[in-house]
């Protein structure tokens, strides 16, 4: 029958397409690939642009997709450097070890402050970390319970794929679950937009995005003082919701990747953090 070659061709097609998954990491030695966190993608691109103009002949390719995507790429050898806005989990570190034969190295490259956003008309002046926790675990549902006017709190959160979501859960919710009523939006920009339109709302996200809304100061506990997010308070760790942003490589960075990472950590590289709304690392 004439049918047979077609079935064979289809089978062949399925075979060849399922075989093409070579990572870009194996391309020419002059290309550095960076993949990972969406929070860090602009930062990474800015670093790459500046680095490439200073080092002609070296190509730095930056893509986003999320911290998890970057880590998966690192495990499969699809990227040289992985950007992550959350620390790698032990299980993921183990996977790198078994698949790539080397330990993963973790390099903090910048600081970020998580801002708490409210609507401009909101008269709350400060929130404690405990109040934030109660709001996001659903124990406080009315603004009057934290000193505001009598209206229901509409709380927005990032999606659970986000490094920021995980950070907030660990540091503010002390690992308890978010309440089911918490609305989640894709991306910090969407949260900022929603909060700017909704008087009864609260949201969180990178301080770099805080435009059109009010970022309120945070108190670590009832006795502490109210700390707004700023370069000084994030670098000195006074602001309770500050975090590291990371680069990950398989084994100690070497060759072109090492040169790039060293440059990122140099004063010149660190200066770029501030142009995109993050903070440079503390100088030792």
């Amino acid at each position, binding site marked *: 029958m*004439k*049918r047979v070659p*077609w079935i064979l*061709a*289809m089978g062949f*097609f*399925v075979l060849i*397409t*399922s075989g093409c998954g070579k990572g870009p990491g194996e391309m020419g030695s002059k290309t550095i690939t960076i993949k990972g966190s*969406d929070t860090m993608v602009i930062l990474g691109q800015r670093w790459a642009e500046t680095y490439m103009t200073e080092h002609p002949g070296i190509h730095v390719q930056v893509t986003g*997709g*999320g*911290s*998890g*995507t970057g*880590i*998966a790429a690192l*495990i499969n050898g699809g990227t040289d450097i992985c950007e992550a806005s959350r620390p790698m*989990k032990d*299980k*993921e570190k183990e996977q790198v070890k078994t698949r790539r034969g080397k330990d993963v190295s973790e390099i903090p490259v910048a600081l970020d402050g998580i801002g708490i956003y409210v609507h401009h008309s909101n008269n709350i002046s400060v929130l404690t970390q405990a109040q934030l926790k109660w709001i996001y675990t659903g124990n406080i549902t009315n603004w009057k319970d934290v000193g505001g006017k009598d209206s*229901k709190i*509409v709380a927005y959160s990032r*999606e*659970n*794929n*986000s*490094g920021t*979501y*995980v950070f907030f*859960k660990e540091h503010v919710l002390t*690992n308890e*679950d*978010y309440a*089911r*009523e*918490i*609305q*989640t*939006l*894709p991306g910090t920009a*969407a949260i900022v*937009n*929603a909060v700017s*339109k*909704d008087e*009864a*709302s609260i949201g969180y996200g990178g301080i770099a995005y805080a435009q059109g809304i009010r970022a309120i100061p945070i108190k670590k506990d009832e006795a502490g003082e109210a700390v707004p997010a700023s370069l000084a308070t994030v670098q000195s760790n006074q602001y309770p919701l500050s975090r590291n942003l990371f680069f990950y490589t398989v084994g100690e960075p070497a060759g072109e990747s090492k040169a790039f990472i060293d440059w990122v950590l140099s004063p010149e590289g660190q200066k770029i953090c501030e142009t995109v709304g993050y903070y440079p690392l503390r100088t030792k």
Partner: protein
Amino acid sequence: MRDSGVLSPPDEVSLVPLRKRRRTGSLSDRLASIVIKGSAFLTIASLILIFIFIGKEALPILTSSEIQKEASLAKLFLPQPAKEGARPEFTWQPVSKLPKYSLLPLLAGTLKVTIIAILFAIPTAVLAALFTSEFAHPWVREIVKPAIELLAGIPSVVVGFFCLMVLAGWLQSTFGWTYRLNAVTAGIGLSLAVIPIVYTVAEDAFSCVPQAFREGSIAMGASSWQTAWRVVLPAAMPGVLAACVLGFGRAIGETMIVLMASGNAALLTFSPTDSIRTFSATIAAELGEVVVGSAHYHVLFFVGAFLFVITFVTNLFGHWWVGRLQKKLQGAA
């Protein structure tokens, strides 16, 4: 394969055996046939590939005992306690010390927003199609038809953003809802994506109704409204139903609009002004950062397969129903 029949001349010429004549056919003929076959084959191959891929990644839910410890079928469909010793509930909370993967809130959310979208879209689209094909002046039709069809060309992320920024605020201030982003907001946004599809297919169905039906009806003394409502609409019913099924498929699978406009809180309630979380939005939001090979990863693929099956069964049922109706109508005619 009988494909060569398409290109062959009428029967009286085919004295040469089929196979041989194909060889002697002109180059462009053969090339065209290869291209056409190739594209048909590509469509089927990609469908099969997608199905194999999703199925393969969803399978560990049913087979791997390690994955089942975290997410078995029972955990996906039966209530589970949120904490040790708490009352069992349906919760979607995959990032947790005790991950909870109940699909019921997602199923409820998906159905709720789809039904709302359909309730808005189908009457609007079908009546608009009836208007343009039966009542509108030709020049009105020349404007309305492309305008509605142009709606399909708006990227859904733009519609979603519009809902998030404008529609949500307007609906909230008009009706005083607590939550800006809810099932109704998303459903109205979704209906904007569904209307063009239902409209186009329904319009085609109406214009396919033979002119003689209308003339006959008018000749019997019926008004043009009676003709449209009692003659044209029933005659075009199979096509209209097919339009509805297509619209349903689009609504249930649409991602960006619901992701932006629904609030994405996985609540299991009946209130249309509560926030909802759909299957497609869950996949879009969570797959990006999930640890590959974890239970969460496989659950998301299971959700994808589940969605695939729902759309497939709906389409199959729609097809069968339309076919039956067609037969009945032809039998009656």
